C-alpha cells in the first residue's frame, strides 16, 4: 500500500496536448475515481501511472519513489483493463498465476495465492476454464483476481465495468467497493459514468479537456460544484441551468420569471442559475409551471416542466398525474440553489 503523488503531470502526443499539468495527491488506501467525458485524458493519466505511456512533464511518485523512468513491471501496481486483457490461451488459474510464474515462484506458493484470490472472488469452480468459457462478469472477476494475486501497492482500473450489462454493472460495482474495503489497497479507478464515481469513490477527480475541474469527496462535488462543468456532470438527472440576470433581489430568467435567490447572492450581474431536479418542490404558491412530459419511475416522478421560456426537469417523491399543459406550480429549495458566473462559469460565491 502506498500514497500516489501526481505533480503537474503533462502529456503530449506530438504537438497535441492531452494533459495540461494535472496534480492529485492520493492518500494511502484511498479509492480515487477519475471521471470525465471521453477524451478528457483520464485514461491517459491512468496509463501514465501504470507506465504504459511516457510522462511528458511533471512527476508521478508511488510511495516515496518517483516512477517516471521505472518500467511498468517494477512499479508494483496491478491494472484491470476495460477489455480485461485475459490471455485467451491460458486457463483462469494460469491467467492468475502468470505474474508469479514469470517471477519464478514455487508451485505451492502459486497454488496457495491463486486459491486465496479465487476464494475472495468466488472463482474456485472456474480455475480450469478458458476465458472464452466464462461470462462477462466472471471474466471481470478473473481480471481482478489477476490483480489481487500480485499483491500490489496500487490497483488501477480502466473503465472495468463498461462492457457489462446494466444489472451486472451495479453488482460488480459493489463487489469492487467491498473488495477495496477488505484489502484497503490504494485504488485509482477511471470511468466516464458519474454514478460509478459517486457510489465508489473516497475522492472524485473530475477532468475535462486535460485539466482537473474539481477534486473532492462525492457529496462535496454534489453539494458545491466549483463550476458549470462539474455542476452539469455530477448528479443524475442533471442540474437545470437557467440564463438570466440578478436585479431587485431576484433572478430574472428569460421569459420574465422571477426566481428567488439563495442567501449571500450578489445583488446584480449576469449569472447562470442552477437547480437540481430533486430540489424543486411542489408548492401551490410557487412559480407558474406547466407540465410538458411526465415520466413515472415508481420511486419518484420526473416531470419536464415549462417555466417561462425554459424547460426544466423536476424530480418529485409524490405521484403526479396531469394532462400536458396543465399547471403544476413549483418552487426551488433556495438553500440548494447554485449560482455561476456567466462569463467564467465559476461558482458564486
Amino acid at each position: 500500500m502506498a500514497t500516489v503523488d501526481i505533480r503537474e503531470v503533462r502529456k503530449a502526443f506530438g504537438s497535441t496536448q492531452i494533459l495540461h499539468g494535472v496534480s492529485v495527491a492520493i492518500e494511502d488506501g484511498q479509492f480515487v475515481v477519475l471521471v470525465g467525458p471521453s477524451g478528457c485524458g483520464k485514461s491517459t493519466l491512468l496509463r501514465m501511472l501504470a507506465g504504459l505511456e511516457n510522462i511528458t512533464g511533471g512527476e508521478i511518485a508511488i510511495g516515496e519513489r518517483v516512477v517516471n523512468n521505472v518500467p511498468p513491471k517494477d512499479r508494483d501496481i496491478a491494472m484491470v483493463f476495460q477489455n480485461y486483457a485475459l490471455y485467451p490461451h491460458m486457463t483462469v488459474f494460469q491467467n492468475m498465476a502468470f505474474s508469479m510464474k514469470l517471477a519464478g515462484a514455487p508451485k505451492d506458493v502459486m497454488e496457495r495465492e491463486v486459491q486465496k484470490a479465487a476464494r475472495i472472488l468466488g472463482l474456485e469452480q472456474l480455475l480450469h476454464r478458458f476465458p472464452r468459457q466464462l461470462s462477462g462478469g466472471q471474466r471481470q472477476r478473473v481480471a481482478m483476481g489477476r490483480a489481487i494475486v500480485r499483491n500490489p501497492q496500487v490497483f488501477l482500473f480502466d473503465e472495468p465495468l463498461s462492457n457489462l450489462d446494466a444489472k451486472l454493472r451495479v453488482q460488480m460495482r459493489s463487489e469492487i467497493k467491498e473488495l477495496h474495503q477488505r484489502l484497503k489497497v490504494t485504488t485509482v479507478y477511471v470511468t466516464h459514468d458519474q454514478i460509478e464515481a459517486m457510489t465508489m469513490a473516497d475522492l472524485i477527480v473530475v477532468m475535462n479537456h486535460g485539466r482537473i475541474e474539481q477534486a473532492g469527496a462525492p457529496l462535496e462535488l454534489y453539494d458545491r460544484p466549483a463550476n458549470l462543468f462539474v455542476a452539469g456532470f455530477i448528479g443524475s438527472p442533471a442540474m437545470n441551468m437557467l440564463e438570466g440576470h440578478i436585479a431587485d433581489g431576484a433572478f430574472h430568467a428569460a421569459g420574465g420569471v422571477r426566481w428567488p435567490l439563495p442567501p449571500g447572492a450578489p445583488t446584480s450581474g449576469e449569472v447562470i442559475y442552477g437547480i437540481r431536479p430533486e430540489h424543486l418542490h411542489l408548492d401551490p404558491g410557487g412559480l407558474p409551471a406547466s407540465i410538458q412530459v411526465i415520466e413515472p419511475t415508481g420511486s419518484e416522478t420526473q416531470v419536464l416542466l415549462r417555466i417561462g421560456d425554459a424547460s426544466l426537469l423536476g424530480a418529485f417523491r409524490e405521484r403526479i398525474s396531469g394532462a400536458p399543459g396543465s399547471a403544476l406550480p413549483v418552487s426551488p429549495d433556495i438553500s440548494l440553489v447554485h449560482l455561476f458566473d456567466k462569463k467564467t462559469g465559476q461558482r458564486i460565491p
Partner: protein
Amino acid sequence: MSVTAAETWRPRATQQGWLSRLFDNKAFLIVMCLAPAIGLLMVFLTYPLGLGVWLAFTDTTIGQRGIYVGLENFEFLFGDPIFWNAIFFSVFYTGVATVGKFGLGLWLALLLNNHLPFKSFLRAIILLPWIVPTVLSAIAFWWIYDPQFSIISWVFIELGLRETNIDFINTAWPARWSLIAANIWRGIPFVAISLLAGLQTISPSLYEAAMLDGATAWQRFRFVTFPMLLPILAIVMTFSIIFTFTDFQLVYAITRGGPVNSTHLLATLAFQRGIPGGQLGEGAAIAVAMIPFLVFATLFSYFALARRKWQQGESND
C-alpha cells in the same frame, strides 16, 4: 390510425408463377447452385487426379495406350536410386526451406508489426518476391548462380575475397543449397504477410497486461505472441509445406534436376520421366508417390498444431 378502413392500402395477394415457385424450391436451388462448382471440380480436379492415379498402374507411354500392370511401376521405382534420391531431396528441400522460411518470415512479421516509418511501403516491398512469376525469379536466380556471370561471384572477386568464381549449381550439394536459398527467398513473403495478419489480431492490451505482469520482451513472445499465433502458424505451415514439397518451377528452371539427377524433386522427376522421357505410367507413379507425404504433412499440422481447446469454447474436462 386511419380514418376509414376503406382508404387503407393493402398489398395485393399475388399468384406466383411456376418459375418463381420453382426458384423458391429448396431442393431445386441446392442442385442448381452446387452444379457449376461440382462440375468444375469434377472436370478439372477429380478427373485428372483419377486419371493420374490410374496411369500409375499402367505402362502407358506417349503414343501408346497402356495396359494395367498392377504395382509394376512402383516395384521398379523402389529399386531406382534416382527415385530414392528424389524422395530424399524433396523431404530435405521441404524441411530446410520450411525452417528457413518460417524463421525469417516470423522475424520479418514481428519487425513489421512494430511502428516503423514507411510501414505500408515496406509491406508492399516485402510482397515483391511473391508477386513476380516464379519462372521469372527462377531465371533471375539462374543468372545469379551462373558459373561464369554470377553477380555474387563478381562481387566477391571485386572485393578481393575470392580468386575464382563460386560453384553454385554444378556440383550436387552446392546446387541443393542454392535451390533451397532461392525457395526460401520466394517463400518468405507469403509467410511474413500471413503471420503479420495473425499478429495484428492479437490485442495490444494483452502485451500491456503481460508487461505489467513482469514479462520481458522474450517472455511476451514466448507466452503471449507465440501461443496465440500457433493456429494461424499451423495453417500457413500446411500450405507452405504443400507448396514446397510439390515445387517444380524453381528447380526445373535453374538446374533441371541436375547435376546428375542430384536436385530432382518428385515433381521434376515425374515430369522428366513422364513427358520428355515419354514414360507416362512411370511418371504418374512418381507423382502418386507424393500423396502419402502430403497427406501426412496436412494431417500433422492440422491435428498437432491447429486444434486448440482455448479456441473451441467447449468444456475442458
